[in-house]
Each structure stands twice: as structure tokens, then as C-alpha cells.
């Protein structure tokens, strides 16, 4: 998550002081990502150094400085909003590695390993869902941030379910005699081993 660009976004609403930025940042992310005040001031100094934000005050005390966004900063913000995060490389996922290892070890019940992780993640999801139970207690930013986390965890559960089903089929069902389709699909998608 980019603190730098989030601060620029807040400054695009109008000039603000550092302590105010910290408060508004936490509110705008539904207080899901707490921020320490040091991070705010360090980031503001860098924004100023790079010409993306400006402070009119000559005060030494960072808390007293009022910052505003520059034209270059506005351009940078518009560019960042439209730049997709790099999702092209699959992350090195620890859970995937654990399930892959479990599926190869002779004395390990891979389904039991999958279930341990599935239960843990569903429990995490229960905790997040519990937070949004009382609709009067949350604002839209909080709901969006919680939804994002729930969808992310849900994807992990779905992967575990898919892994479970795939391993089950591979173990209990006979493989097709002529698996000719696979190489041609591979060629078409351009995937290499």
C-alpha cells in the first residue's frame, strides 16, 4: 500500500497539516491500516524533496507545517490511480508451498493439512465478518477495506477446496489413457515449464 500516494490524495482535497493527514488517512482506510506519525512526516519530507508537495511554512517543527499538493503531485496522483499494481508474477505463497510439500510426503495426510489451513482462514473470516455485523458502526471506507480482506481470504479457501478436489480425483480416479489435450492447451496459452 502506498502511503505516499494516499497522502497525495488527501492533499489534493486542500492544504493540510501533518497530524491532520495522519488522522484522515486512518479514517479513510477504515482504520484498518494504522499509521505512525513518524511515517507521515518522513513521507511528507520526501514528497517535498521530489517536488510533489510543498510547504509554505519555514517552521522547524513538522507538526506546525501546512502542506499542499503541487501540479506535479496532481499529475503523479492521476498516473498512480490508473497504474495497475504488478500482479503478473505469482507471489511465492507459503500456503501453496506447504500444501505442495504435504502432497508429496508419504506419511502426511494432505487433506488434514488442507483442513487445518481451511479452518484457520474461515475463523479469520468470521472475525472480519463480525466486525461489520453492526452496520451502524461502520462507514463505507471500513466496509470496503473489510470486504477486500474477506474476498482475499475467500480466494484462499477456494484454492484449498480446489486443491482438495484435484488431489482427491488424482488419487481415486484413473487418469485418461490418451491425455493428448494437455500439450495443445499448453501451446495455445504459451505457458512453459
Amino acid at each position, binding site marked *: 500500500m502506498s502511503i505516499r500516494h494516499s497522502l497525495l490524495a488527501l492533499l489534493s482535497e486542500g492544504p493540510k497539516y501533518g497530524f491532520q493527514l495522519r488522522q484522515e488517512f486512518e479514517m479513510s482506510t477504515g482504520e484498518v491500516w494504522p499509521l505512525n506519525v513518524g511515517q507521515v512526516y518522513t513521507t511528507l519530507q520526501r514528497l517535498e524533496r521530489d517536488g510533489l508537495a510543498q510547504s509554505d511554512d519555514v517552521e522547524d517543527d513538522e507538526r506546525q507545517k501546512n502542506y499542499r499538493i503541487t501540479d506535479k503531485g496532481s499529475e503523479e496522483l492521476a498516473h498512480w490511480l490508473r497504474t495497475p499494481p504488478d500482479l503478473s508474477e505469482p507471489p511465492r505463497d507459503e500456503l501453496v508451498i506447504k500444501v505442495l510439500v504435504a502432497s508429496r510426503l508419504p506419511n502426511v495426510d494432505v*487433506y488434514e493439512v488442507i483442513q487445518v*489451513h481451511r479452518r484457520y482462514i474461515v475463523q479469520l473470516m468470521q472475525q472480519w465478518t463480525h466486525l461489520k455485523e453492526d452496520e451502524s458502526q461502520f462507514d463505507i471506507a471500513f466496509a470496503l477495506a473489510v470486504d477486500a480482506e474477506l474476498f482475499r481470504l475467500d480466494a484462499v479457501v477456494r484454492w484449498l477446496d480446489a486443491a482438495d478436489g484435484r488431489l482427491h480425483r488424482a488419487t481415486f480416479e484413473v487418469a485418461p489413457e490418451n491425455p493428448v489435450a494437455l500439450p495443445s492447451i499448453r501451446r495455445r496459452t504459451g505457458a512453459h515449464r
Partner: protein
Amino acid sequence: MSMLELRHVSKSYGQGANEVDAISDIDLSVERGSLVAIMGPSGSGKSTLLTIAGSLEEPTTGEVMIDGARLAGMSRNDKARLRRRSVGYVFQDFNLLAGLTAVENVSLPLELDGVSMKKARAKGMAALEGLGLGDRAANYPDQLSGGERQRVAIARAVVGERSLLLADEPSGALDSVNGEAVMRMILSACHGGVAAVVVTHDAKLASWADRVVFLRDGKAVDETLPPPSPEELLNPDVPNPA
């Protein structure tokens, strides 16, 4: 006392070499006011478990009790009465009667149970209003959106003094926002004292439950621990078994 109790419940279909165990040796207890989700892949026995819990099917072995009453040995009529009065069902595809308006659909189970039409309609109307559908009461199912139809189905399931709500993939093909609304309604019924069992393969829906039971090949293999408080969530030392 549990609203629903299953003890060592098994169900098998077919005979001899063709015998298949749909569920085996399931113990499940659901208290009033609590929401239990049953998760598992297709064919794990989720729906069988629900039909047995709702007395629509009999277990091959084991015992089912609804509100303290043993289903085994009950006459068909007694079971039908228990179903009408105590058990509400919500299905994936809503199962509303197309020729009846929303309020007629909701009040039908009461009328079948001998409640006068006037009283039944009043209760049906109250249930619809409780789910924010008062202004849609005179509409037929095909005049309602998918989300509204499912709300009518939930109103029908909780109308009267029903105390056990059984739902099979209740968000069906609804999008996630409508799916969440369905779970909020079921949860709110639970806060009013209803015991609910929701069968789903969707972890987002299951996460609304107080307890999630995992089914695999007809057996309950695992379940979640009791929910922690929000304070524990904000504590970085959440135990991680991984």
C-alpha cells in the same frame, strides 16, 4: 435445551454392494439464538443433513430431536404439524409459488396450519415489513428481483412462531451484496431467538455463523473454535496453527 439435536445420525441409500453412506455418525446440536454453518464440497452430505434435520427424510440410524421432541416414532401428521409450526426452510431457488403474491406466499404456512386468513395475512405482512418488503406485499414473484424473492422466502421461513430455520445455499445466484443481506436477515432472526442451520460451500456466507462445521464424505471432520472478541482481532498475537 437445544432447538435441534442430531445424535449419531447416519443415512445410507441403496442396499448390499450398492449401499452408499450419504452421512455417517453425525452429532450436531444447535441452540436457540445461534447460527451454525455447514461447509463442505458437493456430495459431502450437506443437503442430506439438512433434510434429515428438517424431518423431510428419516435417518437410517441415529436420533433427531426438534425442540426436545424425538422425531422417531412420531406419526406422519405429527411430523407435518411440527414442520409447519417450528421449522422454516429457505432454498437456493426460493421455491415461491408463482400464482400467489408475496404476502400470500408468506402467510400460506400459517393458513395451512388452521390460522384464520385474516390473522395469517396480518402476520405475513408483519414478517414482510420486518424485512423491508412491506411495499412489495401485493407483487407476484415474477415482479420481484432475485434479492427480493429471497427475502420473501426468508419471511415465509420465519413467519409465526417458527424457531428453527434451515437454509440450503440461501444466497443462491445472488451477488455478494445481496448474499450478505440474506445472511444479515438470518442472523437477525437468530438474535430474535431462532436457531438456524445454513448449508453452503461459500466461506463468505459461512463466516456469518457462530460456528462452522466442516463436512467431508458424509462425516463431520472439523469445526471452528468459538468466535474471539473484536479486541482479540486487533491483538497481533492471534494464534496461527500454520
